[in-house]
């Protein structure tokens, strides 16, 4: 089932959570909404689910208006960050909930409910916990229950709100891989909200980067990382080395001096040069477009990072290439190999 978001705007008092957002989510994909907190990603997810309504705009499922239907009629599975399991029910009853509340012709006989719940419990690999209560489970197990419960209603769309946000790093990684496999097995259109870029890039077919209520970029994980559309995306995804600069007369100036760097067609005015730390080489100060003084060098495992203070007092962090041992206090030159130039907003 495909989802279309057309011109959706949502305000909370004076705060604009979503500002005329347009998005097409093709059926069967796993899409990640990625952004910092306050970017509107959770609000968008809740609007798709029917837990919130937009002030204006449309939401369509397979071309049909979804806003006219309430959350219980939309047939979406929703997985909450803090699981939202029913504490007074055991795992089995939690998963069976969506089947038990069905009315009339949709109501399943008890035997069919048991079979379906047992199937789901083995799918999420917790069939041995059926009799436990949620407070007797670990975080990872609880999230598996929540997922099984959401899948029990055979949803047309699966929505996950920071599903691994409350788990520790190791469990998160394991569940991430498991969710990816599950999606291959059950290719239901899934939308995942996360602020964890690693999660989004590793898990999703398509990444939607959001900032301040707007969509900054939609693309494959590779595209979003390698060809960020805006300075915001460059900053938010991966690490960035940011050099304040300015374009005048079609030339890039850093500090006082003109450089040979390409302004990439950006018009005159203040700009930022953004590069991945590993895309910046170290050089002799006189030969490089950017110069600075080494403030500190830090080592984590195989990588080393240097804090470099530029002429005008800005501090940037650069990856130190192997074989080079910059001395603290020494003057050093930086040569961006690959970089993007964005006008300063």
């Amino acid at each position: 089932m495909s989802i279309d978001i057309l011109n959706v705007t949502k305000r909370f008092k004076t705060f604009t959570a979503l500002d005329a957002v347009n998005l097409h989510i093709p059926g069967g994909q796993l899409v990640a909404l990625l952004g910092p907190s306050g970017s509107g990603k959770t609000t968008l997810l809740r609007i798709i689910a029917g837990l919130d309504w937009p002030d204006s705009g449309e939401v369509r499922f397979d071309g049909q208006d979804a806003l006219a239907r309430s959350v219980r009629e939309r047939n979406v599975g929703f997985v909450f960050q803090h699981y939202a399991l029913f504490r007074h029910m055991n795992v089995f009853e939690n998963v069976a909930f969506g089947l038990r509340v069905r009315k009339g012709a949709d109501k399943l006989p008890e035997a069919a409910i048991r079979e379906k719940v047992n199937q789901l419990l083995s799918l999420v690999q917790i069939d041995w916990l059926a009799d436990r209560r949620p407070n007797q489970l670990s975080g990872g197990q609880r999230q598996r229950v929540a997922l099984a419960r959401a899948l029990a209603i055979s949803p047309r769309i699966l929505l996950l709100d920071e599903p691994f946000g409350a788990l520790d790093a190791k469990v998160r990684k394991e569940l991430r891989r498991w969710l990816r496999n599950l999606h291959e097995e059950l290719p239901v259109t899934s939308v995942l909200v996360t602020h964890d870029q690693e999660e989004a890039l590793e898990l999703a077919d398509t990444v939607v980067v959001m900032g301040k209520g707007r969509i900054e970029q939609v693309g494959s994980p590779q595209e979003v990382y390698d060809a960020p559309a805006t300075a915001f995306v460059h900053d938010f995804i991966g690490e960035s080395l940011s050099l304040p600069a300015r374009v005048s007369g079609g030339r890039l100036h850093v500090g006082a001096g003109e450089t040979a760097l390409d302004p990439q067609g950006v018009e005159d005015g203040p700009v930022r040069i953004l590069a991945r730390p590993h895309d910046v080489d170290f050089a002799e100060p006189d030969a490089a477009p950017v110069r600075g003084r080494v403030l500190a060098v830090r080592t984590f495992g195989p990588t080393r990072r240097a804090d470099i203070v530029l002429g005008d007092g800005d501090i940037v962090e650069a990856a130190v290439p192997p074989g080079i041992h910059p001395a603290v206090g020494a003057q050093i030159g930086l040569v961006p190999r690959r970089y993007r130039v964005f006008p300063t907003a």
Partner: protein
Amino acid sequence: MITETLSLPVGRQRSVIPGFGITLGLTLTWLSVIVLLPLSALFIKTSEISLERFIAIVTSTRTLHALQVSFGLSLAAAVLNLIFGTIVVWALVRYDFPFRRVVDAIIDIPFALPTAVAGIALTSLYAENGWVGSLLAPLGIKVAFTQLGILVALIFIGLPFVVRTVQPVLADLDAELEEAAASLGASRWETIRRVVLPAILPALLTGFALAFARAVGEYGSVIFIAGNLPGQTEIAPLLIVIRLEEFRYADATAIACVMLLASFTLLLLINRLQRWSEMRGTGA
């Protein structure tokens, strides 16, 4: 004392919450002085009379009727408070309306108001020439000086117990639970029945027990509105006072003993029910 502590058997568990000995000691002392001592005096005084006399006192029609009025109306008042108190809590917690804080504060008035004042106020309102009573009289409903009047007084004093016990629990209930239920296809009613009520059930039972216990012991407000006709609108606490005024102390304590045992049994039952509601779903 210290040597004794040191020589305790090795099996004793170390705890990060120390002070078990001293707090339990204080608890027991305090309970003994404040609660158990007066209660045992009650039983000692009662034991002055013979068993036949005791049975005769507590099975006399007047006593039985007073007990029936007290317990019957207290239970009825607690049930009504449970229902309407829950609705009040729902409105207070779930909706934002003008003067919500004022309404919230009004709930506590029955706690603070001297019960005699409440009794007199209710009586003058519900008497046949009172504001409410004069409206009900043409319909043939008499409130003041009937059992209905007692019920009104008992509802009045019991309401805050239900509201104040349930309110924090409902306020803490995660809204996500209801959203999850709705997303799974549950109707509003199914959500309330299967998700909200089970979560607040222990608090509801506590509120019910407190309202009931308070109503059984209520004296001040009831005697004004009841009319106090023996065999009709006489409550057990009043009968006890009457016996005291006649210097028939043993008679008074005998009735008190029965009330105490009956209340204790009922509260114990409610407590069991509450435990059950908390444990529900652990096993099967």
